[in-house]
């Protein structure tokens, strides 16, 4: 790698403009003659290239922004509280109030969450359209009791602790490896502490069981 680097550096040096490499005494000389047309062409092509690059950059940003907007719209549509289903293809007004708990639930749920009280039974409501009328996918209504604030805070705290102590940066190692080191370094070598790893073949076993 080092010789390659040196070669590249040397090449780069050779690629430096002549003006920088020339000895200082040659600064008194005038720059070389270039015709006006040639210079104008060079400047135009440069400008065009820059314009192209900037346009491409702008298009890329626009594309990214458009994609993000779509994602947000999709997520908003996919939220469990918003009515998932498009209005029915038939203009039947009668079945709606009786069979559609969703709008009421939507309004009640944010209020309920804010108040910290209120429980809704968990239902996967498909609506009178059999789940085929609206955008594809499922949603589940969850019980507010299961998402208590204390439990959430405690979970966040535990997650923080876990990431700090057992996260990606920590130098943790499997217990088998840790304790078997002495067995391997002894004058009389012994087997590892967990000689047979019980997780071997778990995937295959579970596959064969599902048969």
């Amino acid at each position: 790698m080092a010789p390659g680097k040196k070669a590249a550096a040397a090449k780069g040096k050779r690629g430096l403009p002549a003006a920088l490499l020339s000895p200082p005494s040659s600064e008194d000389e005038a720059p070389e003659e270039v015709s006006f047309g040639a210079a104008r062409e060079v400047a135009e092509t440069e400008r065009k290239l820059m314009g192209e690059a900037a346009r491409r950059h702008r298009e890329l940003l626009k594309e990214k922004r458009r994609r993000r907007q779509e994602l947000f719209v999709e997520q908003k549509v996919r939220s469990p509280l918003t009515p998932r289903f498009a209005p029915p293809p038939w203009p039947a007004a009668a079945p709606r109030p009786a069979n559609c708990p969703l709008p009421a639930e939507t309004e009640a749920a944010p209020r309920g969450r804010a108040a910290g009280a209120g429980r809704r039974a968990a239902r996967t409501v498909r609506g009178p359209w059999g789940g085929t009328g609206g955008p594809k996918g499922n949603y589940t209504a969850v019980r507010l009791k299961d998402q208590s604030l204390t439990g959430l805070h405690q979970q966040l705290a535990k997650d923080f602790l876990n990431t700090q102590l057992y996260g990606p940066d920590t130098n943790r190692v499997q217990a088998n490896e840790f304790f078997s080191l002495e067995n391997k370094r002894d004058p009389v070598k012994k087997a590892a502490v967990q000689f047979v790893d019980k997780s071997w073949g778990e995937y295959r076993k579970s596959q064969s069981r599902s048969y």
Partner: protein
Amino acid sequence: MGEFEVHRVRFFGLVPAGVRCLACQPRGARLALARTDGAVEVYNFAANYFQEKIIPGNEARSVEALCWAAGDRLFGAGLGGEIAEYDLSRLCVAHSVDGGGGPIWSMAANSSGTQLAIGCEDGSVKLFQVVPGGIQFERNMDRRTGRILCLSWHPSDTHIAAGSIDALRVFNVSSGQTVQRIMVNYHVHKVKRECIVWSIAFLSSGTVVTSDSFGRVQFWDWERGTLQESHTVSTSAVLSLSVSEKEDSIIVGTSTGATYQFQLLPVKTGSLEKRWVRTKPFQYHTHDVRAVAHSSTALISGGLDAQLVIRPLMEKMQKKGYDAALRKFTFPHRRLVSCARKARLLLFQFSQHLELWRLGSTDETGKDGEVLPLCRMPEHLVQLKSKGPEHIYCSCVSPCGSWVAYSTASRFHLYRVQYKGDSVSVKKVPKVPKLLLPAYQLQFSADSGRLFIASARGSVHVLQLLEPGGCKHLHMFRPPSGCPDAVYLLAVSADGHWLAAVGGDWAIHIYNLKCFKHHCTVPTYNCAVTALAIHPITNNLVIAYSDQQLFEFSIPEKQYTAWSRMVQNSGLHKAWLERDSPITHITFNPKNPSHILLHDIYMFCVLDKSLPLPDNSALLMNQSTLKQLPETARQRQLHAFKICKKFQPLLFADLLDDNCLVMVERPIMDFKTQLPLPIQQKKFGT
């Protein structure tokens, strides 16, 4: 020693919980310890480091900080956001107060023990007043973002230093304002992760000591906001820190299991300028050391490998003796196994369930040391799961194997177990009489007709067990002079005549079960009782104390026996007294009335009262030498203590019938692989 067929049991899958917090009582000889499963224990240093109180944990409770306040009161706080005061007489949570700041990461009491400061998840430090009967919210300090992971009061109680993520803050207690904020990660180059200040201490000279996740111990001048000294002790995090009372020695614990001592030493002998120097490294743990404490004479560390290590400091010891020995505790000083002798069943007590096993059997015999093949394997018969988050206090199985009882903090369960051929059915006994729960110890009578329940305030309840599956409350015994603590040990005589009970005040009361009256009290001894048993034939009560003394008290005569007086006069052997773990179970051999069988974690002993006692010049563990001697020489060297150290660590040992022993072992490596992951240690050549 005799010839025994030994059932060597290693299928008790006990995984002790790691040590999370330690707190030394400021002017006492006690250590409070909290585990990762929420259990809180109190060790009494004066009673030979005996684990005198255990408050079982709770799934919903996590303890992140523990402190003593107002003398004898113990407070704990955890990620549930509540500050709980522990009632050490009734071994439960006395009351709890919500902190109001989300999960609580740290708690510290001021030097006079009148105020508690807690550091919360939302970045606030709150002050609570310790009042008789509870604690009261006083006020909030200045709140900033960043969870407060550690707290320390200045010894004069004027300032509090708090460590959080990437910074440490100093508060003025009276105004509540932040008077200094020091960025801790300034000196770390090219690292993108945050610097977590895991623990902090405020010295009276105005120096703040911090330990952080980059493995550094740093000394800061809080008024100027400058770093005085920085020591990198490890590549992994330094999780805990504790300063001695004289402020000349600090112990720190790291994630790799190493602990280090820092001492304030003069730069040159005789010079006045002192500097902190890292003096002693110790590697006693294999997993993270999340709790350390510094008592006046010892360095104490507790790790996630469930070990509590007490390292006395040589320079603080007056004489070289057993007092200066290193102490390591992994297993509890209580029995977690009960045995149904006649039915050959073992009941294992876990924190949230019980397992009932039937022992295997063999038809063959062999020579000394041979392993015999089993004709029937040990069988896991029943698993009883306890409902709810509370952990189990105590459990017991009757000698015939048909009754199982256990108790949690708020519920008591009694089950009838029936064996029909190969199948086992368990039925709950309804309408158990209402008792003051929890039950701290359970014991069935020898004929499985009665159940004795040890309860609060020194009382013992007697339940009559009725066929086919019912019970009736017969009587409640109370000690005559009253006792604030709960009974923690029970012993019943084989003829069902006598009951012995020990309470937290270490007084042994003996009750007469025929006329339901208090019979007598054993003379008080200044040490905790660790095991108790009544001889089936002579009705002598054999008592083992935590300082390894043995006494034999004759119940009918209400006085110590002649053998016991002889033992006290000649004294026990030095090697016997210098054992690390207490005796947790005493039993007898009905065929040999002069034998007493006892065990602790590292040895099993058959004590033969008919043989002479060894003096200090004789070898105590002489079984292996005796085997090699000819018969005549053997007779000269025989003494009363026949000790076997083959089975270690021993959680339970009992005699099933005249030639059969059961030994329940729990090898340490068997559970170490189930603990949280350790940090990789680079070893040369691997």
